[in-house]
């Protein structure tokens, strides 16, 4: 029940936040109501489209509006001009081929030349999507060619904070990024840049591994990667539990339970299961119960008795 409450709170917060943000949405100009004014096409108002005149490129001069909407002929408006959205997208009409305004701006199934809307990023991907042409391959052509940095939706700290967006919007990611792009970081041959793991991370990673700012095991096998290296470097000493290493805490043996429950991720990076079982198995040794008060053996047993059988008979 508590889990469902968490999920409900999550959905509610995301929804409320989105509605709040949506309520601050931009004004949409009713093009179809003004069709009679565009006898010479879109350039009647959007004069700078093809000339590349930055001042008039996308926007419309507000004076064009107030010429009619002056409070006498039509209701007065106080539009101050177009404020570019923070789409993060670089686009210049002048550098693109003239393929007809409605190709990108047309409303699907809309009738008439004025059934238009703002172009979406998906429109770009018709020509520029991943795999469409080789020169848009990530790594060959930098993101900055099309996007301001950071790219749209790539919020600050993206390299370490993108997992939710990637899971929720996976089809979007693959528009620009190939699968191999993900592998560069998640299973790359080397530290791909010094933003994810800083330089000389081998000497710095200890604190991070205890703090779990990210889940290390998502890319690094605790057994094969962490323990393997720690064994080679003498940090993990299989079978020796007579003290000497964690000597920064007095009476470590009595206090290690707290550290283990708080930092099990790190413990596994050095210790074998058999080391803990030397004292915590119900079959032999000190038979100290390692289960916490919330441990539900029936749930675990329903799914696997493999681990139970290490310490308990009857499986």
């Amino acid at each position, binding site marked *: 029940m508590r889990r469902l409450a*968490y999920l409900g709170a*999550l959905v509610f917060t*995301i929804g409320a936040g*989105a509605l709040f943000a*949506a309520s601050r*949405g*931009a004004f949409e100009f009713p093009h179809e109501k003004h069709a009679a004014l565009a006898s010479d096409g879109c350039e009647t108002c959007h004069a700078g489209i093809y000339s590349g005149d930055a001042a008039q490129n996308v926007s419309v001069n507000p004076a064009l509006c107030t010429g009619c909407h002056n409070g006498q002929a039509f209701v007065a408006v106080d539009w101050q001009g177009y404020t570019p959205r*923070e789409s993060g997208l670089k686009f210049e009409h002048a550098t693109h081929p003239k393929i007809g305004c409605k190709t990108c701006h047309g409303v699907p199934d809309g009738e008439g030349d004025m059934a238009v809307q703002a172009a979406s990023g998906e429109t770009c991907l018709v020509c520029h999507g991943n*795999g*469409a042409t080789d020169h848009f391959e990530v790594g060959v052509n*930098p993101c900055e060619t099309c996007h301001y940095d950071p790219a749209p*939706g790539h*919020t*600050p*700290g993206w390299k370490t904070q993108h997992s939710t967006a990637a899971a*929720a*919007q*996976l*089809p979007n990611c693959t528009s620009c990024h190939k*699968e*191999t792009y993900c*592998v560069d970081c*998640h299973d790359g*041959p080397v530290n791909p840049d010094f933003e994810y793991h800083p*330089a000389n991370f081998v*000497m*710095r990673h200890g*604190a*991070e591994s*205890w*703090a779990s700012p990210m889940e290390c095991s998502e890319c690094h*096998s605790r057994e*094969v*990667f962490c323990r393997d290296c720690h064994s*080679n*470097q*003498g*940090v993990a000493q299989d079978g020796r539990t*007579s003290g*000497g*290493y*964690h*000597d*920064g*805490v007095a009476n470590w043996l*009595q206090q290690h339970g*707290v*550290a283990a*429950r*708080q*930092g099990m991720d790190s413990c596994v990076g050095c210790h*074998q299961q058999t080391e803990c*079982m030397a004292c915590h198995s119900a079959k032999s040794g000190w038979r100290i119960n*390692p289960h*916490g*008060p919330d441990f*539900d053996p029936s749930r*675990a047993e329903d*799914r696997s008795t*493999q681990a139970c059988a290490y310490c308990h008979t009857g499986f």
Partner: protein
Amino acid sequence: MNVHRRPFLSLIACALLLLPGTVVGQGIRGDVTLNWGWLQLRPFVRDSVPEDGVSGPGLQRQLPDGTTVTCIDGDFCRWYEDNGTRQDITPFTQDLRFAGWTGVQGLSFHGQMRTRLGSDDLWPRTEQKFDLMSGYLSFNRSAYQVKAGRMYRASGLGYYNFDGASAVWRGLGWLWLEAYGGWSLARGVNAPRNGDLVTESDLLATDRRGLLFGGAVGFRGGKVFSGSATYQREIRTDRLALYTERAAVDLRALVGGWAFDGAAAYDFAYDQVNDARLRITTPALVGIKFAAQGRHYTPFFDYWTIWSAFSPVGFNEGRLSATWTSRNIPLLVEAGGAYREYEDANTGPTNTTVKNDGWRGFGRVYWSPDRWYVDGRYRAENGFGGARYGGDLILGRYVGKGSASYVALRGSATETLSEFRVGERYVTGGAVEGAYDISKANLTLDASLGFYRIEDKNRPLSQDWTEGRATLGLRWRFNSGGTR
């Protein structure tokens, strides 16, 4: 791989039978990457003296040079020091990755493989000489995609790869459905769960491969909402037990520069939420983008291990950060911090000295006047098991067009306290780094060479503690054209 060849061939044969006759551009493109590294490390060695040779009473005592030792009456006093013989480790990897278009619209093949040489037994996974990271056929049309082979899958459950097949249907545009299944691989290894790599590293490693099955549903509500839910389970091939059973929900709303991200991953066997996050990122307010995040984290462990039965506890963390990017000058300033508190461990003495909280702070200033750049980064990480404070200062210059070619000097300083061990350590050093992109030849070269000095506070240096680091990389891209 021989064991599972027949199912793969069947899948490929089925895919070929279903192909349309349209033929468009053929081609292949990819890259070859060579990376050589050199690093020096000093292994820890265990030392001891007879207990009666160390003055003072109690379990913990000190040697004359300040080293803390753990003593057992009538036995020995023991301690660890990383003063072993300096090792030279030289891992070398070669990667080949490619994507090929067959000439049949939508049908492509993809692969990535790696060979490792050098430093056997000293650097993790160097004994894995050949590593097939991915290799699959893809048939991709606007409404659906079918893949078969070895592939990765990213979801709210993390990053998994497996040998099998997946099918995605996205015919409605706003909704997508996915089903996938096959033989699972140990995470981060690209090898079976019962393969040599795992069995040599864990004395209780499982003796059976796993079968992985999963499904996902995703939606998109206009330009605002998107989300996905994933369910996945892994079962032993003899079907006697599960290895994992998990589900994840990920939601995102992106409106007017505001981003709202929420995620949760759930473990069915231990009734735990492993990683839950809620993050809000603002558009530029007074020129600064802010991000706030609440997170709960409890580690997840496979069911063949005992670790979850030891009732690991999670932490709850709050994180704030701010990023300012100047519109007038090439300057970026970033700062942030986080504080976390652990749940009650329900064990140990009431007067435990192990902390139950932790914090971090970080900052960065990046300034790039003309073609020069200065990049300063600082991070403080303070936790119950380890801490570090320090950062890097980089002075560099971009060469040629863009930022792919550069040469830089790096200075670095870090103070560490780790693994509940007594003593502070300082690591200071520097490096020269560079990369050069030869676009006409489709080549990128990179190299670095650095040296770091390691000092233990309040303990004498008995020998040269400098350690070297170097890298040399080459990437060559090839392309014979081809389209989707």
